[in-house]
């Protein structure tokens, strides 16, 4: 029987309420036909979950969130690293891609490992939000904090990164959230988790800020080309809401923005960005919000710069 036949509707709501039934029909349409274009996918996400997905690159050398979501869904890049600012929507994007793949790709198994228990919980909360009423008929059993199973054979496991959680079964998809908080050995072991099966290719997606000098995220980015990871990098300016009526003169963000926010299409409130910039140190702002370089705070020689302080010198024999 075709997908559009509502063969698995167990909940009374979907059966009886015409409004939810209509939304569920939309879900069933895409389960049967997929998404034909990035635009169709993004429109679906924005309409269904009321999320703002920035589609415009504000900084020329950065990516936008929409680029990552569409590349992940259409599998243009199997292994991705998302290096983005705090509050830049990394965890949300990870949860969104995970949910979309689980619902619309049958038998797609995902393991999400968070850098901390709290981070994993944040990912779960996003997934819970995406598992709204029109999707309820697809759940097999109850959606739990650590494990959600769907009737199409897909599953989502959300755990905290540990030596135990990286062992066990090998799903096709691996998501590592806030990798800068990972232990090196756990990270290495986690990379061996994803395995292709059932026609679904293995993939690894990594999300993190880069807040530690010489931390794991720094290494991931430096080795990205060699490891085959595609880097998606966005900063606060790329996720900033559009600046419409604010005067540039005297604006607290002018130094970084330079008027670029006029072309932004994101969700980060400008007022909050100005407040945050005022409160944190320049170093923290540059590393965690503008994604310039990792913070050097806490280092003994924080002014040390390889390009300045290391020179080629030949010792005499």
């Amino acid at each position, binding site marked *: *029987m075709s997908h*559009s036949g509502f063969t698995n*509707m167990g909940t009374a709501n979907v059966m009886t309420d015409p409004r939810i039934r209509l939304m569920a*029909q*939309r879900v069933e349409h895409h389960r049967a036909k997929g998404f034909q274009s990035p635009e169709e996918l993004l429109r679906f996400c*924005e309409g*269904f979950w009321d999320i703002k997905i920035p589609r415009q690159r504000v900084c020329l050398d950065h990516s936008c969130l929409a680029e990552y979501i569409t590349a992940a869904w259409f599998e243009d890049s199997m292994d991705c690293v998302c290096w983005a600012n705090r509050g830049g929507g990394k965890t949300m994007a990870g949860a969104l891609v995970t949910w979309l793949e689980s619902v619309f790709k049958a038998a797609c198994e995902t393991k999400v490992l968070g850098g901390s228990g709290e981070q994993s919980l944040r990912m779960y909360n996003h997934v819970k939000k995406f598992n*709204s*009423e029109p999707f309820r008929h697809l759940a097999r059993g109850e959606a739990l904090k650590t494990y959600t199973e769907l009737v199409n054979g897909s599953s989502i496991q959300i755990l905290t990164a540990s030596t135990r959680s990286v062992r066990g079964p090998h799903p096709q998809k691996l998501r590592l959230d806030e990798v800068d908080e990972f232990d090196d050995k756990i990270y290495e072991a986690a990379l061996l988790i994803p395995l292709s099966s059932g026609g679904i290719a293995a993939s690894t997606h990594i999300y993190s800020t880069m807040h530690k000098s010489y931390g794991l995220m720094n290494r991931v980015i430096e080795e990205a080309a060699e490891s085959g990871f595609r880097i998606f990098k966005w900063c606060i300016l790329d996720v900033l809401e559009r600046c419409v009526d604010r005067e540039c003169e005297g604006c607290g963000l002018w130094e970084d923005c330079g008027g670029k926010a006029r072309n932004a299409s994101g969700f980060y409130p400008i007022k909050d960005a100005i407040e945050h910039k005022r409160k944190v140190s320049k170093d923290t702002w540059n590393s965690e919000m503008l994604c310039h370089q990792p913070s050097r705070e806490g280092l003994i020689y924080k002014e040390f710069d390889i390009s300045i302080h290391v020179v080629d010198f030949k010792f005499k024999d």
Partner: protein
Amino acid sequence: MRDYQKFISESNKVGALRLVGEFHTKLMTLFQTTGLVREMPKQFILNEFNPFDDPEFTEKFDALIMEARARGIKIFGL
């Protein structure tokens, strides 16, 4: 016909089976009396009409949803 198993309560399962049985009998009678079909089909596939198969409808639906979102109107079920 196997779809009856997907209902949760037993009474719904019985109801679904009865409905399929009645439908089957009526259809067979109709075919036999009119003589439209010489060979009985081995399987019926019943697909529910899905309005989203029409791209124009989907486009209008999305536009409406986005307008409601822009105005801050709560959309039931979403």
